[in-house]
């Protein structure tokens, strides 16, 4: 009876979840969402006074938005101090937290802004500069004077106008960011005087049909607005390179069902690249299928370590109504090397083996399946190549004439950088083979996972000491000081030109803006010291970025034994890092300590490279690694076997000859 009830309940949940999920898959608005009034922060209908919409108030009419915002690591962005649990992360001295708001990132070069410690001006500056990566709420709310609320529309509305949202944030009109997100729906228009609601789009009672703005579960496209390129359209894919497409910029990951050769990119050997950018996108999986809300009753599950042995399925969970009221926005996640927020929810996401039976699908052809699966992540073989270019280095030690850092990319010709976000059409994109590094799971096991490493160079130095402190703490030299020091009049300082201009044209090209000798470093350091920076020093960081998207089917996966079990095994293939290493600098790893940079740095004429070492990773790869004693033992065994065979054969021959002689005698 109990079992029957459980089955019925399961079927009901499955049916309901199908309906909910189908709304997202079919690109339709949720069929259940009722009409609702758009409210401002005072709880009045926005039509009354033409005020900005408040997502917290509007969605809060039915959903517990306070609960949602307080359980969202997207909103929280790692605020709340500087936890460093058991040395799992490599934090800098000036980091104040694990997320966007507290952890400094050399790619954005925006100093962390601790809520409550910053001036309103500093907070607003942070929001203007990094608001494009933040959904609102959390630090944004605090730093904007309670204006930049968590923006529900950004993730739950099809065709959200992210560009308009970012424009409002960058302009400092934080309260209007959520309203701007509705810009493409036609219910509100941008006018010279600001945003104006179209009353005709609303019902006479002032309510708006949910279908009018296509509200529903978040699609991959919604996630892609902040996380990277998601392309579901029929138009050929073109890539915009900037930190707004974070994962694409840092790793080259693209989530799209489109075939590579149908894209608008100048890919090498494009004609033969008929695989989709990501097979899961092609098979219609959305981000939320793996990164689901942890209390979603359709898919939530208990961690194996806490689930009793006798229980396979625990039906005691939220009803869908309860879930819709208080969906926990701490989403199931993995263990990203650079995404350090919410460590308590690491490894909660649905992984490859939750859907695929890897052992079964590989046992027909792969010898030692269990051994392979114990050492290799699925991604190690199923993401053999990243086809889009990715950032390889960010060099803040010397600014370009436009005041920007010098950028390097891998997977495209050397010294090729995007102009206005696009690589030149003539540049051939070769992509790159990711680095395979061991990552240690909480249970102590380690698997090889594909990574890109982004090298960052920047100056740290001591500025004004804090009150009562003898010395100021070292921190990255602010961008304004870098500009003042290196580009005092909008052009490079004369001393820099004298030191760096190798071709004598009185201009510093990108290739010349490299501090690769002690003399050059000295010239730049003096300029910084002249601007009040004490003890300036170049720091070099190596940030591994893990790669989980861009998955290929078996046809495109690594299958040849020789790819790994040979002298030039891909497991030990080196990855070119930055184009130089400043004298006296030792690169340091940034991010999660669970990733082990198992290998050695090599510096050559073409710059710095990282060469993985199987020995350092604790691996012995047949065909690649040599164990002298083992080789000798094996050789000896072969010799012994040969000797035995020869001896046995010889003895039989002797016996036979003797028998013949005896026979002849007879």
């Amino acid at each position, binding site marked *: 009876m109990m079992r029957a009830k459980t089955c019925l309940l399961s079927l009901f949940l499955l049916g309901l979840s199908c309906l909910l999920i189908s709304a997202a*898959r*079919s690109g339709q608005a949720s069929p259940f969402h009722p009409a609702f009034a758009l409210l401002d922060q005072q709880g009045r209908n926005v039509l009354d006074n033409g005020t900005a919409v408040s997502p917290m108030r509007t969605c809060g009419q039915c959903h517990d938005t306070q609960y949602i915002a307080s359980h969202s690591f997207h909103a929280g962005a790692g605020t709340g101090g500087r936890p460093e649990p058991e040395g799992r992360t490599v934090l800098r001295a000036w980091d104040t937290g694990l997320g966007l708001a507290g952890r400094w990132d050399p790619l954005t070069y925006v100093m962390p802004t601790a809520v409550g410690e910053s001036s309103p001006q500093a907070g607003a500056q942070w929001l203007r500069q990094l608001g494009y990566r933040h959904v609102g709420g959390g630090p944004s709310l605090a730093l904007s004077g309670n204006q930049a609320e968590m923006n529900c529309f950004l993730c739950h509305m099809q065709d959200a106008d992210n560009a308009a949202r970012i424009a409002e944030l960058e302009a400092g009109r934080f309260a209007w960011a959520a309203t701007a997100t509705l810009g493409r729906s036609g219910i509100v228009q941008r006018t010279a005087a600001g945003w104006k609601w179209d009353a005709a789009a609303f019902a006479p009672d002032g309510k708006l049909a949910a279908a009018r703005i296509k509200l529903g579960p978040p699609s991959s496209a919604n996630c892609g607005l902040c996380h990277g390129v998601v392309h*579901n359209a029929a138009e050929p894919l073109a890539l915009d390179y900037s930190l707004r497409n974070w994962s694409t910029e840092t790793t080259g990951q693209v989530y799209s*069902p489109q075939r590579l050769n149908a894209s608008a990119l100048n890919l090498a050997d494009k004609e033969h690249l008929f695989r989709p950018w990501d097979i899961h996108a092609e*098979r*219609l999986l959305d981000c939320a299928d793996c990164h689901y809300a942890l209390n979603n009753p359709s898919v939530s599950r208990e961690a194996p370590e806490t689930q009793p042995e006798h229980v396979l399925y625990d039906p005691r969970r939220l009803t869908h109504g309860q879930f819709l009221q208080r969906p926990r926005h701490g989403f199931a996640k993995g263990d990203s090397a650079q995404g350090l927020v919410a460590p308590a929810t690491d490894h909660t996401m649905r992984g490859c083996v939750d859907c695929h039976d890897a052992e079964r699908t590989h046992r027909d052809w792969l010898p030692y399946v269990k051994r392979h699966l114990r050492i290799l992540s699925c991604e190690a073989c199923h993401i053999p190549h990243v086809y889009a270019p990715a950032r390889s280095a960010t060099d803040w030690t010397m600014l370009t004439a436009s005041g920007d850092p010098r950028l390097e990319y891998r997977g495209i010709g050397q010294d090729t950088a995007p102009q206005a976000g696009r690589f030149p059409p003539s540049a051939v994109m070769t992509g790159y083979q990711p680095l395979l590094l061991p990552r240690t799971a909480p249970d102590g096991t380690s698997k090889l996972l594909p990574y890109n490493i982004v090298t960052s160079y920047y100056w740290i130095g001591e500025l004004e000491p804090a009150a009562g402190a003898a010395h100021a703490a070292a921190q990255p030299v602010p961008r304004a000081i870098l500009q003042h020091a290196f580009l005092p009049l909008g052009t490079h300082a004369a001393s820099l030109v004298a030191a760096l201009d190798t071709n004598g044209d009185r201009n510093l090209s990108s290739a010349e803006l490299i501090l690769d000798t002690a003399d050059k470093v000295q010239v730049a350091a003096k300029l910084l010291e002249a601007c009040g920076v004490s003890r300036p020093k170049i720091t070099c960081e190596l940030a591994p970025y893990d790669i989980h998207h861009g998955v290929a089917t078996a046809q495109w996966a690594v299958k040849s034994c020789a790819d790994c079990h040979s002298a030039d095994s891909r497991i030990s293939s080196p990855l070119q890092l930055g184009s130089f290493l400043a004298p006296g600098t030792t690169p340091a790893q940034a991010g999660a300590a669970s990733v082990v940079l198992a290998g050695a740095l090599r510096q050559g004429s073409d710059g710095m490279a990282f060469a993985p070492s199987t020995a350092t990773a604790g691996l012995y790869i047949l065909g690649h690694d040599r164990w002298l004693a083992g080789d000798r033992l094996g050789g000896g065994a072969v010799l012994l076997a040969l000797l035995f065979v020869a001896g046995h054969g010889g003895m039989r021959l002797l016996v036979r000859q003797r028998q013949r002689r005896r026979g002849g005698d007879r």
Partner: protein
Amino acid sequence: MLNRRLPYLVTTATCALVALTLTTIGCAGGGQRDNPRLNLPRHPARASHSGMISGPFDSPQAVTRACLKCHPAAAGEVMATSHWTWESDTAQSPLTGQTMRIGKKNLINNYCIGVQSNEPRCMSCHAGYGWKDSSFDFSNAENVDCLVCHESTGTYVKDPNGAGMPAAGVDLEAVAKSVDLPTRRNCGYCHFAGGGGDAVKHGDMDGTMNLPNSRIDVHMGRFDLQCQDCHRTKQHVIGGRLLSVSNRSESDAACTDCHSARPHAQERLNAHTDAVSCQACHIPRYAIETATKMSWDWSQAGQDITPEDAYLYDKKKGRFEYASQVIPEYLWYDGSVEHYLPGQRIDPAAVVSINRPAGTIHAAKAKLWPFKVHRGKQIYDAVNRYLMVPKTFGPGGYWTEFDWDQALRLGSASTGLPYSGKYGFVATEMYWPITHMVAPKSAALQCSDCHGANGRLDWQALGYEGDPLLYGGRVQAGLVTADLPGERP
């Protein structure tokens, strides 16, 4: 000693080899093998005719006489086919109720509308000589045009306005000496140029197929298949069927003539084959390089619009729309067709289907097929309410006089359909199944092309409850009247 053991050694080695081979085949096979090359027809041995035929020839009929000396049955075979008669099937006449023969000869289309009264122009694609009006002698074997299908120089062309006669200047002896097995170029001479120009009519056949790459058509481009490899021919009866002129419900050319019915390595793809035609996935787009005509509005003809543009406007013909890289429209199709028949009443307020493919989601036999839908606006008798064939070509025709009334009277005299004296223009649709321009499998449709948020299929319009990926296929949803073999209940 060795000699005594040799037989045992050989036997053991052979057994081991056989076992190894069988094991290998077993491992590699894993299911039904799709080996289409084994199923390709064998062509007869080629023979050069350059030494067998000698001229000069004073007429094309003289060439035919020469051919018939060695191939006496050939003309008779050709004359029994629709390539000669331009009619093949039967239907019941809406006017008389009598059984009538139908075909290209008397059916109406929404391009140039109809053959009757326009024969001298249209017969430039007839496999014969001299069909200029209804007096043409269909029993005269000498009028069979052997050359258009068999010459191989590429220099043989017909006079576009000459009722099928060769153009002036054709070296008849040279082309006669060149005869060979037909190639794509021979078939394409007419079939690529249907509608009066390259790529106009079909959408999935055009001049790029003379020398295609695999991107245009994988069969012709990568494997150099000729038309008759699929349109298998016996005694000049060429396999296949054209939806625009035939109402036979069975085609004698199919993918499964060479391929397995379940050819995919992935079972999930094979599960599609009961409801989805091969073409639906393997011809993702048509008119790959050359644009095809998508619409033709005759009601705009006769205006002095300059400059005229062959792809936009022609005073003689009206306004056009062309497109390339076109995504097909998908319909259920069970192989049969509902033709518009001469004299059939129409509703001028509705779109008239010239040849609506039959089939619904409920018919087990029906599959989703890709179609080019050519939309037209063409002339009809406003009182009798049926489509008319105007005389467009030749003396008194519309292209000369720009007088619809006169053109309809002249057309009426040829078709026998009474003309009331009042005419109008009505919207029509004509369906062209897309079966050529098969893409390499690496370019076939993927899951997201149909099942994604921006998928190309409107599931509910096709009769499904929703995307079958989420709601189940038509069998699971109980939409099919009879179970299909191999489909899960």
